[in-house]
């Protein structure tokens, strides 16, 4: 509407106000440029402020804390990566399958509403997933799954037990995190699967391939880089996920791969959320220092994701 509002004699607008227009252009362009630069400044400020606030931890008297910073952060770092890894392990195959279902198997009409449903789930607040995990999932798992795992697979270090009766274990956390990151990975995978060139698919089918063979030959290779970058984004979100872990996990200061006991390594983010409100002085600085570690870990994961995505898509375009 506004487009057609421009009067036919457009030059009457520009000509008399040429100097002000140039000024206007300069101001408008300047504001845009400033906003862009402010992005860089903000990111630098995030790193800088965190660093300044974290610094007193390293300069503190050795007697202030019982342990050095590295031995404080090591179990937390392990817990963070371990939980995110398990969540990705559970979520990735399911997410790819669901994305395939929505993009290639489900009836077109249903597929749209499924897609909408999945997008909506990506926006459900993590605190809600946390409540559900502790109130619904944990009792189910601790009643019917963990005892079975301990009895039948107890020889594996992962299920060594003793099985938790409250269900506040690393495995419950991993399942909840998997449910949370599933919509993200699914959404991105679905997008790339849908972009598979129709000619590739039809060529494969014309050669007599079954539907699954067509998907394996045409869809999956085309979407591989998209799936990987989606997985990395999901991993990034799982690494930084705070509230669900803080609500569900029963933490201890240890490093273990046992996923069904009450003694679990905490994650960096959950540790901050649990301790921050009651902390003061150098304890706050130490928590911020762990936050800085988390920042770098997610930074690396996201950089890898972007590199994979860029490499993959440029190849697909060409």
């Amino acid at each position: 509407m506004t487009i057609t509002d421009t009067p036919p004699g457009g030059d009457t607008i520009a000509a008399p106000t040429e100097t002000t227009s140039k000024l206007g252009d300069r101001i408008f362009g300047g504001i845009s440029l400033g906003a862009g630069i402010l992005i860089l400044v903000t990111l630098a400020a995030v790193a800088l402020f965190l660093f300044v606030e974290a610094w007193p931890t390293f300069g503190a008297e050795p007697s202030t804390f019982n342990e050095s910073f590295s031995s404080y952060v090591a179990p937390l770092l392990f817990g963070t990566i371990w939980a995110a890894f398990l969540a990705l392990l559970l979520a990735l195959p399911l997410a790819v399958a669901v994305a395939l279902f929505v993009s290639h198997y489900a009836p077109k009409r249903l597929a749209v509403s499924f897609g909408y449903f999945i997008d909506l789930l990506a926006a459900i607040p993590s605190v809600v997933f946390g409540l559900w995990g502790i109130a619904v999932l944990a009792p189910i798992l601790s009643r019917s799954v963990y005892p079975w795992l301990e009895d039948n697979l107890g020889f594996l270090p992962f299920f060594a037990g003793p099985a938790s009766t409250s269900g506040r274990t690393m495995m419950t956390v991993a399942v909840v995190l998997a449910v949370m990151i599933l919509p993200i990975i699914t959404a991105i995978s679905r997008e790339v699967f849908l972009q598979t060139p129709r000619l590739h698919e039809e060529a494969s089918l014309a050669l007599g391939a079954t539907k699954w063979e067509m998907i394996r030959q045409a869809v999956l290779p085309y979407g591989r880089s998209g799936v990987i970058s989606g997985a990395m984004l999901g991993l990034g979100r799982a690494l930084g996920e705070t509230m669900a872990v803080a609500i569900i996990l029963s933490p201890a200061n240890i490093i273990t791969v046992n996923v069904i006991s009450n003694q679990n390594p905490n994650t960096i983010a959950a540790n901050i959320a649990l301790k921050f409100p009651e902390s003061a002085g150098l304890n706050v600085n130490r928590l911020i220092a762990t936050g800085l570690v988390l920042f770098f870990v997610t930074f690396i994961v996201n950089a890898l994701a972007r590199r994979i995505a860029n490499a993959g898509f440029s190849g697909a375009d060409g």
Partner: protein
Amino acid sequence: MTLTEQRPAPTEPSSSITANRMTRVQVGAVGLVAVAVGALSWLSSGSPNWARWIVVTLVTYCVGIYIVARIVEGRRQALDRLMLALVTSAFALVVMPLASVIWTVIERGTNRFDAEFFTETMRGVTGEGGGIYHAIVGTLIVTGLATLMSVPFGLFTAIYLAEYGHGTKLAKAIQAMVDVMTGIPSIVAGLFAYAMFELIFGPGTRSGIAGAVALTVLMTPVVVRSSEEMLRLVPNELREASYALGVPKWKTIVKVVLPTAIAGIITGVVLAIARVIGETAPLLVTAGLAQGVNWNPFDGRMTTLPVFTYYQYVQPGVPPSNGQDRAWAAALVLIIIVMVLFTLARILAHVLKPKGLR
């Protein structure tokens, strides 16, 4: 001649194409057997166990259809049927927990979904009663401030990226940094805001504005990305037509490019709000928790809905059921808000689209 004679009735499975193919009835029979096996798995215990029923049914069906199809149709078709079954059961498996989340929140949230819940605060409340009035006020103020800061910030950055700096080194650097910002964990954004306000106002500061700054860090990259994408979708012909009429660049952007892209931009903003309105961790460390209404974002603690939900659940008081009921009801309110924002985004995207592009 011979061809037409040999062609059988469509239902008869004897032509070369339909030979050795399972009929729908056969597939259905395998499905029914699977459901029966699933039912058997809990019948011995007496009480229906829905989750086990569904899981056992799906596993049995996958194994069964593969074996039957392998015998009747051959290896390739069997694999095809197995993958169809696997992909579909993966979908069913994923829908189960997600449906369970929504169902649980609705079921438990309605215990306290009454008028008092929306008009009372938690001041002086120890047992029954109490409400989320203060938390709603806090959420509106904090999210509103974050939107006020991040929309101009994000929109102008997007304008720079799409209109001014396209292809320059600076634009590429900004784009990369926007990607990095998208990946900042929410708690780290909260710590950043806390650190900034602590350095300015002294240790232990908690305020609504700090929460808004934290949310701005999370929201801006989302706004930038969606707006930039929308600006790029505006056809270049429109810009060129405007330039040809002698309209300066900034006026072209304001009068031509933005109105064309406005539907997508507003949709993106609404979705960004939906994303940050449920953020708990950054507000936990910046805005904190208060029992009463605080209208001033620059002074003192300010409760928001997600933080309220968290504390009501982990510190429910005695007896715990009161606090937990409040937590579930607040979670229900959160989910409703997110759903309303989502639907709103859909409607706006449709209504605001310029007529020519609808």
